[in-house]
């Protein structure tokens, strides 16, 4: 009986992670320079979790995030990283205190993210889909 309860608990815990409904997103991914290759959600997750740190041309990737209290970051985190912002903060604590890496830079507004991406080689970030993206390139992803 105890094993059955444990099994039910595990299935209920894991199921929502597998059967994640596709939800419309209200952000766009922007980069500093044009990139032809289409990125997958997993690629973007690897970039923003710093598991992938070089573009295909070997140049360093320079991701930028919105501050943790931003609703856009919450949406980005849920859609791309499949984790809440709190869970991502725990992930970065793990990386920091194990001497692995530090989190991406953070900016307070779409304008600051745009400025960051526009002025830094290899930069990638996200802004609200309503924000004009002059001077940067919008990335296609699936």
């Amino acid at each position: 009986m105890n094993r059955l309860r444990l099994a039910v608990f595990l299935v209920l815990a894991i199921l929502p992670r597998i059967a994640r409904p596709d939800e419309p997103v209200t952000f766009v991914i922007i980069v500093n320079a044009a990139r032809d290759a289409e990125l997958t959600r997993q690629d973007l997750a690897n970039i923003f979790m710093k598991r992938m740190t070089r573009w295909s041309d070997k140049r360093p990737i320079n991701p930028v995030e919105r501050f943790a209290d931003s609703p856009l970051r919450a949406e980005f985190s849920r859609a791309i990283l499949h984790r809440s912002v709190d869970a991502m903060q725990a992930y970065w604590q793990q990386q920091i205190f194990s001497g692995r890496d530090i989190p991406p830079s953070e900016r307070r507004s779409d304008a600051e993210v745009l400025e960051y991406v526009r002025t830094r080689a290899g930069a990638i970030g996200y802004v609200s889909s309503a924000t004009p993206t002059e001077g940067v390139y919008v990335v296609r992803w699936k």
Partner: protein
Amino acid sequence: MKLTRWILIIGIVACANASFAQQSSKTAIHVFGGWAYGKTDGNGYLSGTKKGDYSATSLSLAISAAPAGHLRIFASSQQTESTTQIDYAFGEWTFSDALRLRAGKIKHPFGISTEVYDVGTLRPFFSLPQSVYGPVGTLAESLNGVGAAGVRRLGPSWTVKYDAYFGALSLPYADFGEEGHGGAATGEQVLDTKEVIGARLVVETPIDGLSFGASAYSGKLAPDESAMRPRHSAAGLQAEYLTDRVSLRAEWTRPRTGDEGEHGGYFEAAYHLTSHWQVAARHEELHEDADHSLIGHHHESALGINYWVSPHFVVKLSAHKVEGLHLVVPETDGQAKPKTTLLNFGAQFSF
């Protein structure tokens, strides 16, 4: 002195939002620490004593810097009630995502939590499970030597992370008392092991948050430990599943020196009822191969409830039921009791 430390800790926590993780593009400073009160019904265990102990306090400072494009420097020091020590200090050169080389006093890559041994905001209980992370001669917080680390993506959804290292380990283990102490542990000693070669492999699965891994190392005891210099080795298996609400962890380890060995393991589950409230449970066991008495084993079951003020500050309350004498310490001039109950209350932070 205690008051000064309290003022310092409270000040740091109070300023956490304002100074959150002082970080520029090249340098970052982070802090973690905590305090705990522990009371037992007899033996001393973890932060607890029979009279109740308020003194378990620690504070650590971690710094990372990027003086050059491919070079990073990491360092961390910790202060407790009685000691100040360097947790790690090393340089890392990144060739690619698949290869990073490290040299210095590096974190010991073994199991799930060795590299974040003192960071309480990354686990549901105040202390890590002692059957694996306690003074059992399995794990050291750091290694003096060199290491390589990397990550590779295997297809669209699988990821493998790996570490390899060579150097010297100082492994804490329980020092057993003489007659009059009831045979229980009376303190900690260190097992110096050199020429250590080790590795860890962790596979992250397509199910977000689910990973499995294995770790192992082997080295020779330092000459002053034993003229025979037998090999000391350890192996471990790990499984972890983390979601926003659930954390499940299980580990098994087997340290071995010459012909003597033991094995320990635990299972831990925690669930966030809300973003603030979390409940947790853990069971762990440790058995020596050759000693089936109370001294040779440690069984512990624990229940806990935590209040997370934020992901960076948590207040924890837990009750622990321990059977065995392997990791408990008898009260001064007293006889160790075969069973110990610990009530633990504390707060931990990091930012």
